[in-house]
């Protein structure tokens, strides 16, 4: 199993732990069911049903969720577990949200004057799903709306929390490709190693000093003879930057670029992958892996292992 899959499984296990936990406990409607809000709703929807006006008016049953909404005042009664779940998804890059399903059962009509309370449970959190919008997780909640302690309706709601799909391909009309490495006589051996999924470090055969990146001569003793040592693949983040601007084709900022100190002691600049850009830290352990970016380009990158 690759590190990426392990990280994904770990996230999914953390997400699943929220199933069955409360999303809102003893929430209360901001206002009692009332005629003005009913009228505003009917005007917006264009609903002229006489059942929603007059002395015996009921609220349109499909308003059920509206009575639970916090509005600009925020979500009073939202439980910490739900906030945590949403924050965890945000951290995983699933920053966008869209509602996908709404299932409502109406037990009894709501009438002006009714004061509603509600309890919401996180019913399920899906595995990672890829949709047209992007990749993310469906979160389903179930809310029981009560009046005077008696159920008036049940509202099941599903949202997709997702990382927006990478947008438009470049001006060429197709996905832009990463820049090609410049390969010359001095570094050809390095790229040949990468092609075979080996990260090769040069070693001076005169004094034994390791050097990276590849150079024609030893900076320590000046000798020109060398051989290679294969990196074991372990490293740590020696330093890093987060690239925000300007955006380059084939890159989606923000992303972290690490200066990785290999276990052998030399340093290499490369992508830190598998952890959100803002979770990369100096000293973080990383592990070499080779990623294929297109049919001809393979690059050594470093999989972060979050503490």
């Amino acid at each position: 199993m690759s590190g990426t899959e392990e990280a994904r499984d770990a996230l999914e296990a953390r997400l699943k732990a929220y199933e069955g936990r409360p999303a809102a406990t003893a929430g209360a409607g901001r206002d009692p069911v009332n005629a003005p809000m009913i009228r505003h709703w009917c005007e917006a929807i264009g609903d002229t049903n006489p059942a929603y006006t007059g002395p015996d008016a009921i609220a349109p049953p499909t308003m059920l969720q509206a009575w639970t909404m916090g509005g600009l005042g925020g979500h009073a009664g939202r439980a910490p577990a739900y906030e945590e779940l949403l924050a965890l998804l945000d951290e995983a890059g699933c920053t966008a949200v869209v509602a996908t399903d709404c299932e409502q059962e109406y037990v009894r009509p709501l009438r002006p004057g009714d004061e509603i309370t509600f309890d919401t449970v996180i019913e399920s959190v899906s595995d990672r799903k890829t949709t047209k919008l992007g990749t993310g997780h469906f979160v389903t909640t179930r809310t029981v709306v009560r009046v005077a302690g008696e159920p008036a309706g049940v509202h099941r709601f599903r949202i997709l929390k997702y990382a927006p799909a990478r947008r438009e391909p470049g001006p060429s009309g197709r996905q832009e490709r990463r820049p090609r490495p410049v390969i010359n006589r001095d570094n050809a051996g390095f790229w040949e190693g990468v092609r075979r999924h080996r990260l090769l470090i040069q070693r001076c055969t005169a004094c034994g000093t390791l050097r990276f990146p590849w150079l024609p001569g030893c900076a320590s003793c000046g000798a020109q003879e060398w051989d290679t040592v294969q990196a074991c693949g372990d490293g740590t983040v020696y330093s890093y930057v987060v690239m925000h601007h300007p955006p380059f084709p084939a890159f989606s900022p923000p992303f972290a670029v690490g200066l990785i100190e290999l276990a052998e002691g030399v340093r290499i600049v490369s992508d830190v992958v598998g952890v959100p850009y803002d979770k990369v830290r100096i000293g973080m352990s990383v592990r070499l892996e080779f990623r294929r970016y297109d049919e001809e380009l393979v690059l050594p990158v470093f999989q972060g292992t979050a503490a």
Partner: protein
Amino acid sequence: MRAGDELAPLEVAITRTLIVAGAVASRDYQDVHHDPEAARAKGSPDIFMNILTTNGLVGRFITDHFGPTAVLRRVAIRLGVPNRPGDTMVLRGTVEEVDGDTAVVRVTGENGIGRHVTGTVTVTVPVLVPVPGTGEEAR
């Protein structure tokens, strides 16, 4: 009211006003439902209708057809493509099953870019039943 009956389609012009009025009437202040710039920043070319408004339109479609005595029991919808300003959505419904005075109606809403909503609505329509021998009708 029989299985297979089709409801008269309801055409809904998706105006900016409808989207914003629906969002505010349902107390949904998510910026993607009223602020075009914010919607663009989140990858949508314009604002789009919130699910609560769609839910309300589906309910209205059913009660418009069955009349003010109809009682909605259950509305279950799934969204597909968004309803964006300038589009028109056509709601269509077919009675799928009837059990006594209760019907299950299958609803779809198509707009210019595809299917915005699919769903089922369970609705009870009290029928006037003649009471034998009285010359009167009872509900």
